[in-house]
């Protein structure tokens, strides 16, 4: 687990003994909590295990992972159709079985794109890790510096650049195929090549938008926790899209 700052765990105090009645008998037990702009949100009132940013982070992550289930099923549906169509043919007028499937030559630029996407995943991970480096996070939480956010923003910008590069590379690949007169409508295999790559590009475009949102959030958001969550969720989504691309690329390269 990556370190994320949560206030020290305090047992839930019973209401009857809660307040210091001024007799001096009870030492003040109130710790500094709920700082960091979480106005009026006293985590001590909450049951253990749900006291703030850590829980918000895991909530967002869980939502994201359920969303990724859905994305995976979307592509699995297309891939299972891919297997069926690849094998299918029809009988022509001479009772010959004809399979129209002509494997689409994968433009070699896709290898380069894959490398770029892998690199972008690495830089995204650097951004995510830097958001959770304990010493710097502490500094930023107290308000001494914004070093973590600045570093993460730098890495995210690199990711954004590489992601943009990937999308441009995909565009070039479609262009190259078009120059060879391979279009979406040409052949069953090209249907699937374009369907899969375009659907993935749309998902990656959502990732790019998330990166931009995260970059804006890093500048604008006043809460460190929100910044951390924004970066974390964006990067996990980005990783998932990278992993998905490798699966789809292997399928297109070797599975046709």
């Amino acid at each position: 687990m990556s370190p994320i700052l949560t206030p020290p765990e305090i047992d839930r105090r019973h209401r009857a003994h809660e307040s210091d009645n001024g007799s001096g008998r009870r030492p003040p037990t109130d710790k500094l909590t709920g700082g960091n702009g979480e106005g009026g949100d006293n985590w001590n009132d909450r049951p253990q295990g749900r006291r703030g940013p850590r829980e918000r982070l895991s909530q967002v992550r869980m939502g994201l992972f359920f969303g990724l289930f859905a994305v995976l099923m979307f592509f699995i549906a297309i891939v299972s159709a891919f297997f069926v169509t690849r094998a299918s043919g029809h009988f022509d007028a001479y009772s010959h079985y004809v399979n129209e499937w002509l494997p689409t030559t994968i433009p070699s630029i896709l290898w380069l794109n894959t490398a770029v996407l892998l690199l972008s995943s690495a830089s995204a991970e650097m951004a995510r890790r830097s958001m959770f480096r304990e010493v710097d996070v502490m500094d930023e939480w107290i308000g001494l510096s914004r070093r973590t956010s600045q570093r993460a923003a730098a890495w995210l910008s690199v990711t954004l650049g590489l992601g943009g590069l990937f999308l441009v590379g995909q565009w070039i690949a479609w262009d190259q195929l078009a120059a060879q007169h391979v279009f979406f409508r040409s052949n069953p295999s090209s249907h699937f090549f374009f369907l899969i790559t375009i659907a993935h590009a749309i998902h990656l475009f959502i990732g790019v938008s998330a990166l931009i949102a995260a970059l804006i959030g890093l500048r604008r958001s006043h809460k460190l926790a929100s910044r951390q969550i924004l970066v974390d969720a964006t990067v996990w989504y980005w990783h998932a899209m990278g992993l998905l691309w490798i699966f789809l690329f292997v399928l297109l390269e070797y599975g046709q």
Partner: protein
Amino acid sequence: MTAQHSRWTHHRTVGFGYVAISLAAACVGTVLSLLMRLHLTWPAWSLPLHGLILPEEYLALVTMHGTLMLFFVLTVAPQSGFGNLILPAQIGARRMAFPRLNAASMGLTGLALLVLLAAFFVPGGSPISGWTAYPPLSATALAGPGQGEGMDVWLAAIALFSLASTLGAINTLTTIVKLRGEGMSWQRLPLTVWGWFTAALLSVLVFSVLLAALAMLFCDRHLQSGFFLPTGDLVNGVLLQHHGDGSPLLWLHLFWFFGHPEVYIAILPGMGLTSMVLANFAHRRVFAYRLMIATTLLIGFLGILVWGHHMFVAGLNPFAGSAFALSSMAIALPSSAKVLSWLATIWRSRPRLTTPMLFALGFVSLFITGGLTGPILAQPILDEYLHNTFFVVAHFHLIMAMAGIFGLFCATYYWFPLLFGRLLSEPLGKLHFAGTLIGAYGTFLPMHLTGLAGEPRQYAQLTGGGSGPAGQLLQTTLPLQHGITYAAFFLACAQLPFLLNLVLTLRSHLLATPNPWSATTMEWASQDFDEASTEDKPTGLVTYRGPCHYSEDGVSFLPQWESGATSTLPPE
């Protein structure tokens, strides 16, 4: 996220929005079904301001009725509507996990409904290929008047709906997993929550498959691909121009992979609610509580693996058909376990026969009646004969549509005091129940008989089929057809007491007492726990035990939120 949430993203607002959407869809869908019945019985009857109902218009009615009812009523109201209204309170939470996402998916659902209804007004009218939109007829505008722009509008509406449902389900899942209040362990979750959980998990897994299939169908329609179209396919005498050797069977696989779990999404919340309401009014614990949790999950799990039983006569490999028949019949096991638990829960108890209890009993009754025909249709051999007959219509209307609606009415009567602070009138409610039950059985039981006699479904006209044996066969079902139509109108009219009840109750000043049903689940915890508040502070409620702790002697009960003191049940 922040301490203050906008009212617009509050789960109650969102929940009422969903309910309003499905109420609108239900009204339109009911009118369409009545028009279908009128046309089937009196083909010469002309609709005022419109004229005769043409065969393609009849098919459009079938399509829109199915789409509206299944997507916008049976999916939206139990899962998203009551899921938002009740779920957070029932798990001891103050809000849903992602309020803004929640509001956005409600907006998308509303937009989807508007887009779908727009299909009535585009050139050519609404689509005619049924809510299942089988290609090749759904893949080309040549297939009929509604298959051009109407079909495109349909595709757009369902795509929006898929997106919205997925987002809503993500929110529901995260809420249940992460936001349960203190002490609310998995074992203590009410069965309604388990129903919502399983249905949401199914939604996340299957709606995106539907979205993929819709995207491919869109390509077939507009980009000359042939995912679902065989080579050399003639539609209305025109050769379809496209590349590839696709197969409609592929669409059927993808569609029913979504379509079958979809019916469980519609019914699982109702099953959970029935368990809780039966136990509530019988003052008993739910029989075999852990088994009920397990069967809920098992029904969801098996529901993913049975889609092929919709395709027994579609050219599916018979061996694959047998495998799907096996998994389909396996679902009968957890379903029967549920029925047995319902019966055991109320067995020899002296239940308070309030309106919600009556509707829950009606749910059980319809679930048994509709369920018994399930294993029959799960046999490929029997399904061959019955598949295209009204027998199937009777089956799914009883087990899914009517049971689902009874679940919704049960939820409305049960939770009305929680939502509006007033109890719906009992006499009017009982009148409503009796009318609805008689109407439901009167409409759908005879369909088994006409189906067995061979009446085909999705045919615009049954009379005047000539003097051949088929025509004579259909002639013999005509008296029953009339009866079904009268019963359908009776069923529709039986909803008037409900509307009257709503209006009268909302105008009355008689407020309900807190926890009027002596319920044990968390949503009834305290009336001062202001649900409508948008402030995000902890509820301060602790769950001490599972639901439905009623004492053996039937005198006292222990709600989930009480630490030890039992409450006494009111005298009968």
